[in-house]
């Protein structure tokens, strides 16, 4: 089955075009603010510092435009808005380098605001909402640290500094320490929350979240550490340090945008468009699941179908599917047509925290799921049929074996004993001549009966197969074939599953019987090869050809038995006359208990 790549399926509606207009306005104001920065920045304090300004404005724009892109692609997800907000915070932040005026004051107040916005962004990823109380309080604390605890730094600054009300170095120092301590605490809690989320996310979600969280943890730690450690221990141009910090933070929106383009975010709320897409395209299971994965922004989403007969869920192959126990990261959404249960969606709660969004999607796909459910049911009954055929073959083999063992252990021994007794009567001292002759004849006949019984047992289940396995049994078979027969085996002497050994042997035996009966052949070649997955047997003769599977009852029965074990058997004429019988037997149901 081919998996189709989802085509762009979102038509432009009036709703999306008004959104587009709004986003454009925001984008334009970001551009404008950036140009104000460019106009008023204290240029010409050195080429290196000028570069820092350019980089600062550029990375702010990166935040804004990456945010707007995410916003446009995922209108119901607030993450894009938060990202754009962080970009504006960076643009305002640059005001703090202006030489004077009201704009400078605004810049001084918002100096550390970008950090709080980045923390908000990291904690709100990927849904745009803050799910845990800890995350909410951490974000609030972040904004408090950056807006309120920042105030002593400018209120008690040296005289002449903007917004300074009193020159109080003591208060300034104390305020700086309090803000740094609180800021560090916020960063550490953020790191802890991200690490915990990454640990708790499902394996597939980790692929999406992993790089973002790891980088996020690095990003939030780098800013305070670089400010505290690098700036103190080494003499670093403060502009250069700012350059590094800004650049490092600017990578965050880039990573998030990559996640957007990969479909890592949830885009809920456009279910009607999904519905029209489903109607337009006859849904095959992989396409349906693929569409759901794209719609929910969750590559790990699974779709299972309810089997009313069996009263459990099945997957699209018809095998029994188990629902995960509801836990922090996996949840189950039942899908119903009217009140009838038809299936369930298993999804990642990290990526889709709102059950009602998933339920809405579930209602949209319900009819398509019902159709797939019928297909899955058909698959299940086919699978059951296959299993039951395999069981019948296995039961047949087991019975053959038991009959052969019973004859071998019981009846043959009794015939030997009877024969001994007949012999003893024949050689007794006190019998008449007639009795002696009769007893001797009886012994010979018992020997003949024993010989016939030996042949029967051999045909049912050859001794070599029980005692030594396939290689020895085929060698014995070739030895007893009254035509020049070559046997080539690339097969270890290791025992294979009894069913497979038996079947391979009987395929060869039946093919040989056919050759001897019909082919008028001069010689026969038997070839057996095998690997860990399957064994292949081939019997070729140089006779008149013309054998077909349907012509011989024996070979037809063999093909049924081979098919039941998931193998194949075919008979074909060889180019220069003769016939080739070929069979492949898979070893997948290898059960160590079944080998003696």
């Amino acid at each position: 089955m081919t998996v189709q790549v989802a085509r762009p399926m979102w038509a432009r509606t009036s709703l999306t075009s008004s959104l587009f207009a709004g986003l454009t306005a925001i984008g334009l104001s970001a551009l404008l603010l950036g140009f104000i920065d460019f106009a008023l920045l204290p240029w010409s304090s050195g080429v290196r510092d000028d570069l820092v300004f350019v980089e600062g404005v550029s990375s702010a724009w990166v935040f804004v435009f990456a945010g707007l892109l995410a916003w446009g692609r995922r209108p119901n997800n607030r993450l894009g808005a938060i990202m754009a907000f962080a970009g504006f915070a960076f643009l305002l932040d640059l005001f703090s380098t202006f030489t004077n005026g009201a704009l400078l004051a605004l810049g001084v107040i918002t100096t550390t605001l970008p950090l709080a916005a980045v923390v908000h962004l990291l904690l709100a990823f990927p849904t745009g909402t803050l799910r845990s109380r800890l995350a909410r309080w951490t974000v609030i604390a972040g904004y408090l640290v950056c807006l309120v605890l920042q105030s002593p730094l400018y209120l008690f600054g040296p005289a002449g500094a903007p917004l300074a009300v009193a020159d109080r170095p003591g208060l300034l120092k104390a305020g700086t320490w309090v803000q740094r301590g609180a800021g560090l605490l916020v960063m550490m809690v953020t790191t802890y929350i991200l690490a915990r989320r990454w640990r708790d996310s499902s394996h597939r979600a980790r692929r999406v979240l992993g790089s973002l969280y790891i980088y996020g943890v690095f990003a939030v730690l780098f800013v305070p550490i670089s400010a505290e450690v690098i700036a103190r221990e080494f003499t670093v141009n403060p502009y250069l340090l700012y350059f590094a910090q800004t650049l490092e933070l600017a990578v965050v929106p880039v990573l998030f945008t990559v996640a957007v383009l990969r479909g890592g975010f949830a885009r809920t709320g456009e279910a009607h468009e999904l519905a029209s897409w489903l109607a337009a395209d006859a849904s095959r299971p992989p396409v349906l699941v693929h569409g759901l994965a794209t719609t929910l922004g969750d590559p790990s989403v699974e779709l299972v179908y309810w089997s009313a007969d069996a009263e459990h869920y099945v997957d699209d192959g018809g095998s029994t599917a188990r629902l995960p126990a509801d836990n922090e990261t996996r949840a189950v959404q039942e899908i119903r047509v009217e009140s009838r249960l038809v299936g369930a969606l298993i999804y990642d709660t990290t990526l889709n925290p709102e059950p009602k969004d998933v339920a809405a999607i579930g209602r949209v796909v319900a009819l398509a799921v019902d159709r797939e459910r019928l297909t899955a049911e058909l698959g299940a009954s086919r699978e059951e049929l296959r299993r039951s055929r395999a069981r019948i073959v296995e039961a047949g083999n087991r019975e053959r074996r038991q009959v052969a063992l019973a004859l071998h252990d019981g009846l043959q021994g009794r015939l030997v004993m009877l024969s001994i007794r007949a012999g003893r009567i024949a050689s007794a001292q006190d019998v008449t001549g007639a009795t002696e002759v009769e007893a001797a004849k009886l012994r010979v006949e018992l020997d003949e009966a024993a010989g016939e019984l030996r042949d029967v047992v051999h045909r049912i289940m050859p001794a070599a197969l029980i005692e030594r396995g396939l290689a020895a049994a085929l060698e014995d078979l070739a030895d007893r074939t009254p035509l020049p027969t070559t046997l080539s085996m690339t097969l270890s002497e290791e025992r294979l599953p009894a069913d497979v050994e038996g079947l391979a042997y009987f395929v060869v035996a039946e093919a040989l019987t056919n050759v001897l009966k019909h082919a008028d052949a001069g010689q026969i070649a038997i070839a057996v090869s095998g690997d860990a997955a399957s064994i292949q047997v081939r019997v070729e003769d140089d006779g008149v050809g013309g054998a077909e599977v349907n012509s011989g009852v024996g070979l037809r029965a063999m093909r049924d038995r081979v098919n039941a074990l998931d193998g194949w058997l075919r008979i074909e004429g060889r180019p220069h006359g003769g016939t080739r019988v070929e069979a492949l037997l898979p070893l997948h149901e290898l059960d160590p208990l079944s080998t003696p």
Partner: protein
Amino acid sequence: VRVIIAEDEALLREGLSLVLTQGGFDVVAAAATADDLLRLTAELQPDLVVTDIRMPPDRTDDGLRAALTLRRTMPQVAVVVLSQHLQRRYAVELLGGSSAGVGYLLKQRIADVEHFCQDLRRVGAGGTALDPDVVAMMVARARTDHRALRRLTPRQQQVLALMAEGRSNGSIARDLVVSEKAVIHHASRIYDELGLPVSGDDHRRVLAVVRYLSEKATDESAEH
């Protein structure tokens, strides 16, 4: 001759024991498993062991494996293996490098008490006893690809088969109702035709013939 019997079927074990006792053998022990056989043989040091192939513990070729172990570790003990079904592979394995004191017979042969005891005595004395059926199968198979074998006269083929069974010239002569001299004459014609090394020793003769029969025709002498 001191004998140990190994057979897991109680009925057959007792029957065999009775046959051997009446045939003049001293049955010192009877084992029901291959492990018991090895243990009792090491303990009692018999002259001869008579064992079934399919026995506990595994009920596959346990008896044969025990026989091969005895051939290797206690070559002074003669071994006769009995089976319901004969295979060329087992015969070749049992003969190994020497055909001294080894036998491989169909279980049904027990019923012909007189000949059975003769075969056992021959093996006990260091000779060989291969079942006529397994020899016949080997000859039939060898005929398909050894052209030299097809050039032998029917009488020569009879002699060849009896030689492979481990019979002496005297015994072959009695069987075919010919003189021993005639048997020697046939034997040397067979050696010439098949390119076998001449050997007066019965065991070496068995080994050479069986090897010839079970090997593929590769040498030019067999093909010209």
